C-alpha cells in the first residue's frame, strides 16, 4: 500500500509530507533522502517526464501534476497502481472542494487541513471514504466540540455506511435539480476529409437540491432500452423512437448508482448526493454529428513561402448557434511573417505559439467561412522536414453531438410529502470540442 504521500512545489520544495509506513525509509532521515531522490530524478529531470511511475532506489513513485504542484505517492510494495492514481486525483478533488484551486499558496495556507484530511482519508496507506460531502461534516477548521452524541453517530454512520455520499435530514423549501449533458466530441480527420477516428465522451452532471433521501431514476434514449421497450409495445413506437435512440459503447457511473440493477435491467437508479456531482460518463462512436468540418489547403511555394487556406463548414440546424469558435493553424518554426485574410471573426499570428489563431464568436448552422494566410519562411539548411501538426479546433454548440436525449428523471421520496411533479427540473445540453483535429 501507499507508504508515503508528498506534495511538492515546482521548485521541488516539499510542502506536505506524510509517511504511512516505515518501509519507505523510516522516520526522519530516510524519508528526507527519498524526498530528495524524487526531486532530483523527476521534478528536476532534464528530460520530459517519461513515465508517471518511477522506480528510484527500489521505491516506486507514482505522481500526478496539477498546475505547478506535484503530488507523489511512494511505496515499496506491489501496490494497486490504478488505485493509487485514482486516489491522487481524488485527493486533488477533495482539496479543491475545500479550498479551491490547488496552488502553492493554497496548499501552504491550508497545510493543517491537508494533514487532517490525509489522516482521515488514508489509513496505513489504504484509502478510506473520500466523499467530500461526508468529510465536510466532521473535518472543518472550526473544531467539532459542540456536536451532540446523535450528531456524532450520524457522522460515523454516514462515513462508513452504505450511502456514504448523503446525509439524512436534508431539507429544501424548493426541490430542484439541474441536469447538464456535457459532451466533448473528438475527431481526427485526414486531409482528404476521411474520418480516421471520432468519438464522443460525455458526462451527465447533476446538481440536486432535494429533501430527504430521494430515490431517483434516470432515463435516456439508450438503444438497448428503447429496443427492449419496442418489443413490448406497439410497432409504431419502434419506428418513432428507434430512429432517435443512440448506441452507447460503454458507460460508467457514480458510486451512488446501483450497478447490479444496471447490469440486469439497464435502468439507472440511485439516491443522489447533495449538490454537485457527476452521475455518469459515457462514450459513443456511432452516428456522431460532427458540428464542424475543416478543409485545409496547404501549398508550398518555393522554399520560403507557404500558402494556407482553411475553410470551416458548420453542420447542424441553421436555427442553432455555435459559440467560442477557435481554429488553430500551426506554422513552421522558421516563420518570419504572416499575412491573413479572413471572412469572419478575427485572426492573429501568435509567434510564441507557432500558430495562427482564428477566432469567431458566433456562427449559425449550415454556414461556411474561410481564412487564407501567406506565410513567409526563413531560408534554412535544415534537412528536417516540418512535421505539419494537425489543425485543431475549439467550439461550443447547444446540442449533444452524440444524439443523447434525456427522457426522464423521476424522483420518489415516499417519506416526505413531495412528488415527482413538485420537483423543478432543468436540462441543458452542451457539446464542446475535445481533441478536434484535421491533418493537413
Amino acid at each position, binding site marked *: 500500500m501507499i507508504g508515503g504521500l508528498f506534495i511538492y512545489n515546482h521548485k521541488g520544495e*516539499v510542502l506536505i*509530507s506524510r*509517511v504511512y509506513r*516505515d518501509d519507505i525509509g523510516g*522516520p526522519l532521515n530516510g524519508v528526507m533522502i527519498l*524526498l530528495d531522490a524524487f526531486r532530483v530524478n523527476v521534478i528536476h529531470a532534464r528530460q520530459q*517526464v517519461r*513515465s*508517471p*511511475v518511477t*522506480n528510484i532506489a527500489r521505491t516506486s513513485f507514482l505522481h*500526478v501534476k496539477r498546475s505547478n504542484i506535484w503530488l507523489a505517492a511512494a511505496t515499496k*510494495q*506491489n501496490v494497486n*497502481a*490504478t*488505485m493509487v*492514481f*485514482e486516489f491522487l486525483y481524488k485527493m486533488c478533488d477533495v482539496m479543491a472542494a475545500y479550498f479551491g484551486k490547488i496552488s502553492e499558496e493554497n496548499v*501552504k495556507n*491550508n*497545510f*493543517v487541513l491537508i*494533514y487532517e484530511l490525509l*489522516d482521515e482519508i488514508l*489509513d*496505513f496507506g*489504504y484509502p*478510506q*471514504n473520500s466523499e467530500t460531502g461526508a468529510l465536510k461534516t466532521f473535518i472543518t477548521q472550526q*473544531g*467539532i*466540540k459542540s456536536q451532540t*452524541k446523535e450528531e*456524532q*453517530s450520524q*457522522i*460515523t454512520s454516514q462515513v*462508513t*455506511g*452504505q450511502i*456514504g455520499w448523503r446525509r439524512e435530514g436534508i431539507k429544501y423549501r424548493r426541490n430542484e435539480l439541474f441536469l447538464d449533458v456535457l459532451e466533448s466530441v473528438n475527431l*481526427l480527420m485526414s486531409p482528404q476529409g476521411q474520418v480516421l*477516428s471520432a468519438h464522443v*465522451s460525455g458526462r451527465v452532471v447533476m446538481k440536486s437540491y432535494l429533501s430527504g433521501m430521494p430515490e431517483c431514476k434516470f432515463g435516456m434514449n439508450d438503444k438497448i432500452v428503447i429496443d427492449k421497450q419496442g418489443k413490448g409495445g406497439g410497432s409504431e413506437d419502434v419506428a418513432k423512437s428507434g430512429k432517435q435512440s443512440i448506441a452507447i*459503447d*460503454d*458507460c*460508467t457511473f*457514480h*458510486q451512488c448508482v446501483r*450497478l*447490479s440493477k444496471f*447490469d440486469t435491467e439497464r435502468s439507472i437508479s440511485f439516491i443522489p448526493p447533495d449538490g454537485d456531482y457527476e452521475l*455518469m460518463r459515457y462514450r459513443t462512436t456511432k452516428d456522431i454529428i460532427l458540428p464542424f468540418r475543416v478543409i485545409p489547403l496547404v501549398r508550398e511555394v518555393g522554399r520560403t513561402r507557404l500558402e494556407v487556406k482553411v475553410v470551416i463548414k458548420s453542420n447542424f440546424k441553421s436555427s442553432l448557434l455555435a459559440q467560442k469558435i477557435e481554429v488553430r493553424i500551426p506554422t513552421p518554426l522558421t516563420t518570419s511573417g504572416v499575412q491573413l485574410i479572413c471572412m469572419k471573426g478575427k485572426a492573429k499570428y501568435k509567434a510564441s505559439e507557432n500558430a495562427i489563431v482564428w477566432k469567431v464568436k458566433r456562427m449559425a448552422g449550415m454556414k461556411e467561412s474561410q481564412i487564407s494566410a501567406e506565410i513567409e519562411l526563413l531560408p534554412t539548411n535544415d534537412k528536417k522536414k516540418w*512535421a505539419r*501538426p*494537425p489543425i485543431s479546433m475549439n467550439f461550443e454548440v447547444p446540442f449533444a453531438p452524440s444524439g443523447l436525449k434525456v427522457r426522464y428523471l423521476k424522483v420518489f421520496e415516499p417519506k416526505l410529502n413531495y412528488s415527482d411533479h413538485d420537483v423543478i427540473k432543468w436540462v441543458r445540453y452542451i457539446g464542446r470540442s475535445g*481533441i478536434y*483535429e484535421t491533418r493537413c
Partner: protein
Amino acid sequence: MTDSKYFTTTKKGEIFELKAELNSDKKEKKKEAVKKVIASMTVGKDVSALFPDVVNCMQTDNLELKKLVYLYLMNYAKSQPDMAIMAVNTFVKDCEDPNPLIRALAVRTMGCIRVDKITEYLCEPLRKCLKDEDPYVRKTAAVCVAKLHDINAQLVEDQGFLDTLKDLISDSNPMVVANAVAALSEIAESHPNSNLLDLNPQTINKLLTALNECTEWGQIFILDCLANYTPRDDRESQSICERVTPRLSHANSAVVLSAVKVLMKFMEMLPKDLDYYGTLLKKLAPPLVTLLSAEPELQYVALRNINLIVQRRPEILKHEMKVFFVKYNDPIYVKLEKLDIMIRLASQANIAQVLAELKEYATEVDVDFVRKAVRAIGRCAIKVEQSAERCVSTLLDLIQTKVNYVVQEAIVVIKDIFRKYPNKYESVIATLCENLDSLDEPEARAAMIWIVGEYAERIDNADELLESFLEGFHDESTQVQLQLLTAIVKLFLKKPTETQELVQQVLSLATQDSDNPDLRDRGYIYWRLLSTDPVAAKEVVLAEKPLISEETDLIEPTLLEELICHIGTLASVYHKPPSAFVEGSRGVQHKRLPGSAGSGESVESPDPGAAATETPPAVIPSQGDLLGDLLNLDLTPTTTTGPPPPTTSGMQMGAMDLLSGGLDSLLGGDIGGNPAMGAAFGAAPATMPASFNAPGSGGLDDLFDLGGGVGMPMGALNPPKAVWLPAMKAKGLEISGVFVRRAGVIQMEMTLTNKAMSVMTDFAIQFNRNSFGLAPAGPLQILTPLSPNQSIEPLNNLQVAVKNNIDVFYFSCQYPISMLFVEDGKMERQVFLATWKDIPNDNESQFQIKDCHLNSDAASNKLQSSNIFTIAKRTVEGQDMLYQSMKLTNGIWVLAELRVQAGNPNYTVSSVALAIGPIINQNGFENGFTNQAL
C-alpha cells in the same frame, strides 16, 4: 488568517521561542506554536527537541490541536521512545472517549507509533475497539491490526487478533468488511503458507455481498482479494464472474481494472464453448476502451495492462484498433505504449490504416517515439505478409529523409525483414549502402554489416565496404565486431579469390589483438574450420537460417500468466514479477492462473507429422526497451544478430527411478559436448538419442535423429511422439516426446529442438510430484516447484520442468498408464479368484472400448505385450469373458474382466483394483488397445 506564515520563520533562536509559546497559557498561542512546529517538520527541520513540550499539549479537548500533536508524535516517537511513554495514558483514555471520532483517532494514531513499549499498551484498547459499537471505530481498528502486525507479528497472533479480524469479515457494515479484508490480505501476504484468508464459498459470498455496498476503495480491496481465490469448478467460477461484471461500469478505473483481473483469471476455468464465455469476452472490451479516456497517468497504467491482456487474449480487443491511434497531445509515455499495442493488434484487416498512422508518426519530433514508429513499420512487415511490400517502400521513403536516427532504425528493421522474407527485397540494398557513412549506432552498424555479409555476392564492392569498417575494428562495440567477423568470413566463402587478405586480417584482429573471449573463440572456430575443411565451413557458415517468427517482444508465457494475476498493480506496469522489485517476504509468492476445465490442454497436437513440418516459430529476442529499463534491472537480453556460431552443448539427464518398484538401478546419462543426447530412463542401457538442433547446423540433426528404435519388442506399444512443449512457449525450445516401456523399464523419450537463435546449454530436468512417483534420478536442480496439481487433471498427468541456460520451462504431459504395468503382473489363478470376490463393489468401474476389431485371442496377445495378462477365459452366451490382471509399479494390483462379443467392435471392461479405488480407467486400456489396433 492563513497558515503559510508558519513556513517563513527562520529566525535563529526559533526553537527557544517555540518552546516558550508551547508552554503558554493561552490556547490560541499554543495552537499557533504547534502549527509552526509541524510546518518546520514538513520542510525537514529537526524539531525533536521540543518533544516534551508538544506532548504536554496533548491533553486538550480541541480536536484540531489534538490531531496536530498526534501527527508530531507519529514522526518523532521513534527517536524519543522513553518520552513517548508519556503519551500512552492520554491514548488509553482517548480510546474510551464517548465520541467515536476520538476513539478512532486514538487507536489509529497509536498504531502508527512504532515503539515497542507503546505497542504493549495498545493491545487492550485495540481489542475493545475491534468490538466497538460504532462501525467507524471498528473499521479503523481493523486496519490497526495490520499496523500492529507490521511492528510485532508474534504479538498479534498471541493476542488472537487474527481471529477477531476474521470475524469482522462477517460484519454488518460493508466498510468494516472491506478494511478487514485489506488487513487480512496484507497479513496473509507475509505468511504465504498460512490459511489465514480462508477463502471458501461462504466467505466469497459474503465478500460479493459487501462488494455492492461499500465505498469505491473497499470494492478494490475486495476485488483484489477475490482475485486470489481459485473457484472449485467452472460453475462457481461463472457465478462469481456474473456478480463481478457489473463493476465494469464503475466510474473508478481501479474498480474496473480489478474487476477485469478477477474476470481474466476466472475465465481460464470456463469452457470455451460456453455461451457465457463469449458474452464475457464481449463485455470486457468496452470498459478497457473507456479507460483510455481517463487522465493520462491512468491511461498509461491501463495501456500497460492492455498490453498484457492483448497477449493473453487477443480476441478481446481485435476490433478496437482505432482507439489506440496516437493523439498529438498525448504525453510521450502514452504514445509509446499505444504504439506497442497497435502492433500487437495489427492484422491483415486493418494493416492499411495502421501503416498510414505509423507513417504519420515517423515524422513527429520526439526521437524515441519516431524510432519506435519506424521499428513498428518493420514489425508490421514481418507480422502481416501481405503488407511487407508496402512497409518496405515506406521504410525506403523514410530513409530518403536522411534523418539520421530514422535511417538507422530503418536499417535495423530491414535486416529483420530480410530474415523473414529472404531473396525478396534485396533490390533495396543499394539504397541502404548509400547511407553507410551516417550510421553511428552499434545496432544499425551491425545490421548493415550483416546485410552486406549475407548478400556479399550481389554487392560488387562488398569487400571495400567491409574493409572500411575494419579500419576502426578495435573501437567498435562487441556486437559490431562479431558481426564484422562473420560477415567477412561469409564474404570469403562466397568470393574466395579476392578476399583472402581481408579474412586473414580480420581473423588475426579477432584472435590476437582482442581480449574479448567471445570474439576470440569465434575467430578461432572460423579459422580452424576454414583451414581444415572449407567445404564444411561453407555448410556451417552459409547454412540456411531459420525464419524468424511474426510475433516479437512477447512476454514469456509463465511470466505473462503471473502478470495477469497482478493486473492493475505495479507489477503489471513494470511487466516484472513483484519479486523483482519488492523486498522481503511480500510478493515473493508466484501467482498462477487456474487450469482450464477438462484436460484439453495437456494433450496437445497428437499428430507428430504436423508438429514436425510446421515452420519453427522462433522468437526474436526482445529489443531493449527504448525507454530504458524502468527498474534499471538488467533483464533485457542482448540482441544477437545473425547466426551464432555452431556450438556444442552438454546436456544432463538423470535416470528415473520408481519409488516402489525396486527397479532403481540408475543410469545418469551425462553426455556432454555432443549434439545428440541420451535420454533413457531406468536400468536398461538403451540410449535413445534425441536430436539437439543448434541453429546454423541445419543438417546435423538428421545424422543423429532417432537412430534408435533398436531392440523394440515386436507388437509393443510404439506410439508417435507428441509435442509437449511448443517452441512458442519456451523461448524456442521445443520438446516432443513419448513414454514407452521397454525391457521392464519406463522410458521417456524426448526430442529437444532448439528453434531459437541462440545456443542453449545447462539442461536439467525435474518432475513434479505425481501419482506413481515417477522421477528422474541423479542430481536435482534447484527449481521452484510447480503449482500443485489441479484435481481435474488425470492421475497420469506428469508435470515436468526442463531447465537450460535461458530459463526454466514447465509443461505437462500424460503418460499412458499401460507403461506402468510391470512384467510380473500375472496373478495365480486361485489368488485371482479369491481376490476378485474380496474386493468391494465400490472399487469397481465399468466402461466400453469402442471400435476394436480383434477377436478375444488376438486381444489377449496384444494386451500381454503391454503386461496385461489373461488369467482365465470363458465363453458365456457367445461372449468371450477374459479375466486379466496387471500390476502397477507401485504394487497395486488391478483385475479386469473384458467382455468381447464376436462381431461387436465394442468391448466392455469392468475393472477392480486392490487397496485403492478404480484407478484404471479407459485410458490405460485404450492405450493398450488402440495404438496397436490401428
